[in-house]
Each structure stands twice: as structure tokens, then as C-alpha cells.
């Protein structure tokens, strides 16, 4: 097992401990790099923002289901990792927000939607992933995508566009 993989196994077993910061950060950076590489692959052939976002959301949902331990580390357990967890999550959220907010370029009036729209979208996805990982029951993430896509698209492009997405996903 590599360093990050070994730490993930250890972390899942015993949680965060003082002195873990360097290994925590190394593991986080490894997983974040891997995640963004997968997103880049999933979206490389896509043209418009909506298609890219759609592909990125699908890939995220697939990864959460396929790699629950890594997802849990990033989304759930990092919350209990104190300062280093907050810092790492803050950077990841900022990166996602910047990427999602490129949707403004496709709006006739880019400033017409609230400043924190991308933050809102990250928040609704985060919530669903968090609750999927913390509750044993409940539907898998891919089956929750229509609703998430509906809310995300509605926030930038209005409810009609959101409903189109809901129908497309179904």
C-alpha cells in the first residue's frame, strides 16, 4: 500500500490524531489530484458548461459510490480533523466554486445571479454526499442526481432550464 492508501486505512480505523497533519495533508493532496484528474477526463470532450457540469456531477457520484472510504475521508472525517481538515476542505471548496462559477460566462447578464451561487451548488452536493456517507440507508448518489442537477441548473439558468435537466436525467 502507498503512503496515502495506508493512511486512509489507518484513519478509517482510528480517526485523526495529533501529529497526523503531514500525512493527512499528503493523503488529501493525493486524493484531490486524483479527483480532479478524473473530472478532467470525464469532461474533456464536452462543449458547453451544462454538459461539462453534468459529466462532472455524474463522475463525482460514481466515485463516491466506488470509493466510499476516500469519499468519507474528504467529506465526513476531515470535519473532525481540526485546523488541517478545515484548511484542506476550504481550498477544495474554493477550487470547485471557481470552476462551477464559469457558468456565468454563458449568461446574458453574468451578474444577474447571486454572488454565492456556485457556493450554493457545492453546498447542496456536499449535503447529499455527506448524508449518503453518514446514513447507512437511503438512495445511492447517482439516483439523487436528477434532483441535484435540477437545483443546480435552476440556480444559474432558471427553473425552466432546471426542469429540462430533471426530465433529461429521468
Amino acid at each position, binding site marked *: 500500500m502507498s503512503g496515502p492508501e495506508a493512511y486512509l486505512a489507518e484513519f478509517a480505523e482510528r*480517526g485523526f490524531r495529533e501529529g497526523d497533519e503531514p500525512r493527512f495533508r499528503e493523503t488529501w493532496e493525493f486524493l484531490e489530484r486524483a479527483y480532479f484528474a478524473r473530472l478532467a477526463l470525464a469532461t474533456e470532450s464536452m462543449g458547453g458548461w451544462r454538459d461539462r457540469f453534468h459529466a462532472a456531477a455524474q463522475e463525482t457520484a460514481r466515485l463516491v459510490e466506488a470509493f466510499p472510504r476516500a469519499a468519507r475521508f474528504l467529506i465526513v472525517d476531515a470535519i473532525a480533523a*481540526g485546523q488541517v481538515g*478545515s484548511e484542506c476542505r476550504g481550498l477544495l471548496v474554493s477550487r470547485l466554486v471557481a470552476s462551477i462559477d464559469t457558468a456565468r460566462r454563458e449568461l446574458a447578464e453574468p451578474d444577474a445571479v447571486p454572488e454565492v451561487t456556485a457556493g450554493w451548488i457545492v*453546498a*447542496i452536493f*456536499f449535503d447529499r454526499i455527506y*448524508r449518503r456517507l453518514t446514513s447507512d440507508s437511503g438512495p445511492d448518489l447517482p439516483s439523487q442526481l436528477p434532483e*441535484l442537477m435540477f437545483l443546480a441548473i435552476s440556480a444559474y439558468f432558471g427553473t425552466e432550464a432546471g426542469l429540462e435537466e430533471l426530465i433529461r436525467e429521468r
Partner: protein
Amino acid sequence: MRESRASGYPPEMAAGPRQRRPARPGGHALRPEVVAHHKRQQIIGGAAKAFAERGYRQTSVADIVKASRIARGSFYEHFGSKEECFFALYDEVTAAALERVGRACEQSVEEFPERVGAGIGALLETIEADPDVARVCVVEGPAVGPAITARFEKLIGDFAELLRAGRKDGASSEFPATVEETVVGGVYWLLYYALLEGRPKKMSRLRPQLVEFSLIPFVGAEAAGAAAAAG
């Protein structure tokens, strides 16, 4: 157990002694339940201070005891552990917030968008009234670990129920059944990051955005924007 709003004590305790007790020199005898309740509230208050200062993980029972100005033994008369004490605080704060938001929605005689605006306004006022305690519950809550899950789900579900009133409006019946939970969850994590980063300083500045995001799925962007701009 429902508490008397005026005194903060359960009704049977707030009603006062049922029979005359011998007076102590310098004061009246207090019923043991009242003393116990007061002590418990004192510990919860101290715990709120300790958790706000050090975070959940770094706070020990000794920190709570010190902040509460009680004897260590007193702590264990009321709570079995730090976690149990945290949950007492969490339950009290979240129940009060839910009640305040529910009341604001009920008292608003206007349409659904304005009621949602009133509810979100009340939530943000609650947070601004005591940002440290809000931060303890919203930010430190998820740091407690798996034991918080049921409470977290209940909290989201209870607030979603308040929002669900909007689904009476015909068009929204085609939406997924869990859309309110997702909206409330989004509001939760936006507040989480705002409280974590201490930005904005005045939480009420988030009101227009939160109102708009909460309403868009139900009433459309234009009406949501109008409701966000109002109030």
C-alpha cells in the same frame, strides 16, 4: 417536555412549590428540581463557552467544569460524558431555533415566498443573537462523529417540514419528494462555511441569497428574486 417560555423551566417547576416548606435563614427553600435544572443550565452554558473557545475535539470535561464554575462531581450528576453534554446544548439550541423560525413563518400573513423570507430572517437573527453558540452547533456538530447523524437528519427534516408548506402550490408537485431536504441541507452547509470563516460578519447579509436559493425551485427565479429583494 414543554418548557414555560417565561422562566425557561418546565411548567410543573415554574408553577412553584405545592406546599409550604420551611424557610431557610436568609432566603426561601428552592425545590430540588429547580436547583437541579438551574445547575444543568449552568453546565450547558459553561459547555457552550468551552466548545466555542476550543472546539468540540479539544474540549475536555475539565474545561466544561472550569467554564461552568461547578465541582467535577456535579457535572457527572447531570451528564455521563462530554458528548452527552454537547447533545443537551445542541438539542436546546436547535429546538429554540426551530421554534423561532416556525413562529416567524406562522406569524407572517403573506404568501409563501414572504413566509420563507420571514423564516430565514428569523434563523439569521437567531444566529446573530449568539454567533458563538450557533457556531458550536453548526460547525462543531458534525465534528462529533457518527453519534450526531440522527440529530442532524432530524434537524434537516424538521426545517424541511416548514418549507414543505410551499408544495401545496400546484406546479411544484412534479418535483422530487426530497427537494425541501436538499434545499435545507444546502442552507445548512452555506451557513456552516460562513460561520467557519466568520464571513460575512453580519449573517443577515446572507438573507437575500438564502431566500432566493430556497425559493427558486418552487416559485421561479423572478418571484424568488423579488422576495429576496423585499424585507
